[in-house]
């Protein structure tokens, strides 16, 4: 039976988001200087997941920010992650300033699409981004990268199934499974030496 989520402090949903937040926070700190695009993408996920921890712990004010930053993560952080992995020598991947601008532009476009009713955009971008990551990992025959990409794909599949029905993945519900799979994906993707040089 899945571990149920409730309004109690640090329930199973909150714990899963905490795991994602911790992994993303660690990746952001570890790569802040050397791989700014990867770090900024992770930082965005860290912020979204941190609000998620509060939200799932029953703190009402965190609901809006959690949804907002999750949307930003879907529309801007995933594509940035893809650029960081697939084109590590690009200005966007190498320069913190350029990565931030990328987030700004893709975040704005994503929000605009979402607000004008084209909600599918937030589903399309992560899928395309993860496929790009997988392609880059396969090309470079990087085991960590390939497993990381597969875990990301699994997390998106779980998220989609979770939206459609009351899906459970062993002991976890869809939300928890998605968070754990993403956390594992991030950890593998950013694991040294990672797949910094895709070419």
């Amino acid at each position: 039976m899945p571990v149920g989520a409730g309004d109690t402090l640090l329930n199973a949903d909150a714990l899963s988001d905490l795991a994602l937040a911790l992994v993303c926070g660690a990746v952001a700190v570890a790569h802040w200087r050397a791989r700014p695009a990867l770090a900024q993408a992770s930082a965005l996920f860290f912020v979204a997941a941190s609000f998620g921890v509060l939200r799932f712990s029953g703190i009402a004010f965190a609901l809006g920010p959690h949804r907002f930053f999750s949307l930003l993560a879907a529309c801007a952080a995933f594509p940035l992650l893809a650029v960081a992995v697939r084109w590590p020598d690009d200005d966007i991947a190498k320069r913190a300033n350029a990565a931030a601008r990328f987030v700004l532009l893709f975040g704005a476009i994503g929000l605009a699409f979402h607000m004008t009713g084209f909600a599918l955009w937030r589903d399309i971008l992560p899928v395309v981004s993860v496929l790009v990551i997988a392609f880059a990992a396969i090309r470079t025959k990087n085991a960590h990268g390939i497993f990381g990409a597969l875990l990301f794909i699994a997390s998106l599949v779980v998220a989609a199934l979770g939206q459609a029905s009351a899906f459970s993945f062993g002991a976890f519900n869809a939300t928890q499974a998605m968070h754990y799979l993403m956390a594992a994906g991030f950890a593998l993707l950013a694991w040294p030496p990672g797949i910094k040089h895709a070419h």
Partner: protein
Amino acid sequence: MRKKKSIVNPIIYAIPVFMLTVLIEAGLARRRGLTVYDIPDALTSLHHGVISEVTGVLWKLAGLGTYALVYTNFHATELPADSWLIFVLALLAYDFCYYWQHRMGHEMNVLWAAHVVHHSSEYYNLATALRQTSTGRFFGWVFYLPMAVIGVPPTLFFTVAVIDLLYQYWVHTELIGRLGWLDRVLVTPSNHRVHHGQNDYCIDKNYGGILILWDRWFGTFADEREGEKIIYGIRKPLRSFNPVWGNLHYYADLWRESMRAVGWRAKLGVWLAPPGGWTDAPLAHFDTATFVSYDRKTPSAMRWYAAMQYALVVPCVVQILAMDVKAAPMQAVLYVLVIIATTVCVGLLLEGRQIAKKFEMFRLLLVGAAFATMPDWFGFDAPTALRIALAVFVLASLLWLSRQRVPNVAEAIAV
């Protein structure tokens, strides 16, 4: 059912103050013997202001009030709009967000393409403050979304936004010198002059809206230098009085550049890069001694003609800002186009373009006939006396214009 009360655009009330203060500043400058104003340049600034405001109407029509949408969907809490403390904090938050919007407006090509309009004047006066972009709304809103997510209600947001905007009006003047300690805390005429300068030490400095403290904290502050005359404007001068081109010229540059770039990442990179591209090389030196300002030697009579046409545009702008545009969207769009066409025709006349005279005469005929004969002028039922007065004005303008020989571009430069 209660009828929803529409919010009146506060700019309507500010317009007479703007006009009056511009005239006072021009008069004071003249008395002091300072060349602060150039009529074609000032009119171009005012035309940019007009277009910026009336295109805002189209934005409203498109229903893209993004801040309100984000607030509705994602706010953390509902902060009270009637608390003084929240008001002050919201103003501070807005000013902080404005600093970053403004800074990125200078440091990112796609945002600079919008903001460059405000810097394209080679004069620094109150009219320059009104030289505003019409395309800034595409991305400018992004920077204020943290306020929406925190829970600053849209009404409070728009209040502090107007305060921040209006504050920045008075700092666009050369007539006020240094203000002591205020120059170190607030955005003042002295430190904002630096922001508008092309001199080497002025580039990418002093972005603040109300507080200059943000610049001091984030390392972008520069104090005005005694004895070094500031040259205003942009390094690649606009050299046009056409306000539509003024809004689009840098987009055109970026478009050409991105077409030349090879590969989609390079093409995208053009829009994200800083003006001048990703480079660690120092900025090219600007020689203030060799600077020549843009002057088409527009004949004096033509300058006054253009000023009179502008005077007629102002009530139209007030009318369109006060209109319930959602009740008659097509009318609003048509009215916006009429106003934009007017500013373009007058701008081209000031430039001395041969085609301008034909365009302007055609516009006069069309607008004059429409005003005199239509049952109402975009919802305004004009009294007969006003219709006759305008018809006489249009006929006089046509007659005067037909007798004018508009010097062509080469002649205008050669004079």
